[in-house]
Every structure is written in C-alpha cells, then in structure tokens.
C-alpha cells in the first residue's frame, strides 16, 4: 500500500517536472486575461511604474544569463517545480508535526 502510494506520487511529480521542462517553453506568450484588460483599458503602465520586490532570481520565469529563451524558461520551470515540491513537503511536515494529538 505504502509503496504503491509512493509510486503514484513519484509519477505525479515526474509528470509535473516533464510539463515544466518540455511544455513551458512552448506556452503562449500572449498577455493573460488581466494584462489584456489592463492594456485595453489603459492602466497597464500603472503596474510597470515600480516593483517593491526587486530580488526575484528568476524574473519572468527565465534563468538570467542563459541566452536561449526556451532553455532559460525550461530550466526555471524545472527549478521552480522541484523547489516548490520540497517546500510544500517541508511545510506539510511542519503542519503535521505540530499536531497536538496524533490519534485522529
């Protein structure tokens, strides 16, 4: 039972990594719904005037310094997906561990 669970989860994680690696470089680069509305109704520039957080390492889902855009996006997607997997598991463990009574 436990092995089967692990197997299924690894497949799910593998699929997520493959999506990020091989499909994200070919995703539509058109503006999304909100960006389109902002452009169309003339308030897009309000969002470009300033940004509070300047230190995002993978701005616009690209690894800085890699000239090939598709490769930069694919690797950023791979790092993000793997990173969020580990953060979420860490968070899940913390949330579970602080449980006062385990006999639910």
């Amino acid at each position, binding site marked *: 039972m436990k092995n089967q669970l692990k197997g299924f989860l690894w497949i799910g994680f593998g699929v997520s990594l493959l999506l990020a690696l091989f499909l*994200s470089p070919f995703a539509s680069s058109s503006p999304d719904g909100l960006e389109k509305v902002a452009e169309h109704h003339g308030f897009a520039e309000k969002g470009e005037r300033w940004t509070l957080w300047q230190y995002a390492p993978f*701005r616009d*889902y690209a690894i800085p310094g890699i000239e090939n855009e598709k490769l930069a996006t694919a690797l950023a997607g791979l790092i*993000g997906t793997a990173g969020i997997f*580990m953060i979420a598991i860490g968070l*899940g463990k913390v*949330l*579970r561990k602080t449980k006062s009574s385990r006999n639910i």
Partner: protein
Amino acid sequence: MHIPDGFLSHGLNAVTFVVSAGACAYGVKKVNQKFGEKEVPLMGVTAAFVFAAQMLNFPVAGGTSGHFLGAVFSSVLLGPWAGLIIMTLVLVVQCLGFADGGLTALGSNIFNMGVVGALGGYTLFWFLYRLSGRSHKGFFVALAVASWFSIVLGATAAALELAISGTSPLVIALPAMAGIHAIIGVGEAIITTTAVSLILKTRPDLVSCFHKRIVPGGLAQEGGVS
C-alpha cells in the same frame, strides 16, 4: 490573474492581506488537525503540479492567454484549507522567486485565488455534489461547474479591487475581466476534471472528498466550510 504592484491601493491591499492571513492561520489549524502520513507527500506533488501547470499558458480569444489555476483541484484532493495553503505557497514562490504578482498585492492575489478560488470554489463544489445526491456523474458536473466559477469569481474579485482602488471603473473592469475569464474558466474545468478523473481511476483514495461517505467518523463533516 496575478495582480502586479501598482494596480491596487495600499489600503485595499492591507485589508485583503489581513483577511488572507487570517484565513491561512485558520487553514493551518484545520490542516494540522487533518494531515497524516499520506497527505504530506500528496501536498508536495499537488503544489508542484499546480506550479508547473500554471506556467502553461494556453491561447484564448483575441491574442489573450490563460492558464490553469488549480484551486478547486487542490481543494478536492486535500480539502479546502489545504487548497488555500497550497495556493498561498504557490503565490508566494511566484511572487518572490519569479516576480509574478506584486509583493504589495500578495494579500489580494491570495484573496482572489485562495480565499475566493479555493474556499469559495470548494464550497460551491461541495454544495453541488451534495445536491446531486453524491452520484459519480454529479461529482464531475460539480467539479466542472465549481472550477469554472473559481476562475470567474476570482476575476470578479479582481475587478472589484481594481474599481475600489480607482484603477478602472467597475462598469469597464467587471465585464472585461469576467468575460475573458469565462473562456479561461472552460480550460480550468477541462483540466481539473481530466486530472481528477485520471487520479480517481488509479488511486481514488487520494481524492479526499470522493470517499467521504465511506470513511467512518470525523471526516464526514470535514467538507463543510464555515
């Protein structure tokens, strides 16, 4: 639907931040009561899948793109409070790591996609699923309808925030945002029902709300969102 810095007023962002933080704090408590061995790795995979799938923008009408949100998807797998936590985690990583969504607008983005998307979307799902008498067909109809609404309601919340902030009047922002997201919501419904049906075929026990009536004891009332 990720709102950048500069679109919304600081006052509104402060209010949504407090509401979102409060919802997350309560969510942490609820998840804390529910999570066991099985849920931890499932939460990791769900968050990874949501992040990866959110990168895959698909083209919709008129030079616009949309992408999967995953709020109802996460909530149906792990419960609405874990869904909220997963959406929050994804939004924080996207904001700090990928400059997607403004830091000042983080509270608003969590409100639109987590509180409205996950909690609101799941409430609608749960209501429709119960209304259908918990049939197999009713499950998927409820899932599709709730997924669609999670996008449209999230976009509606964003339009209200833009109007309150004086960025765009409601008569313009609301039809424009709800209209384009009504199309994006169809994609959300297709991806959510496809992904959940694949999981149900292989591991139905991983979909927390599907087996609810079989699970004895306390889990039965877990679906309620107060």
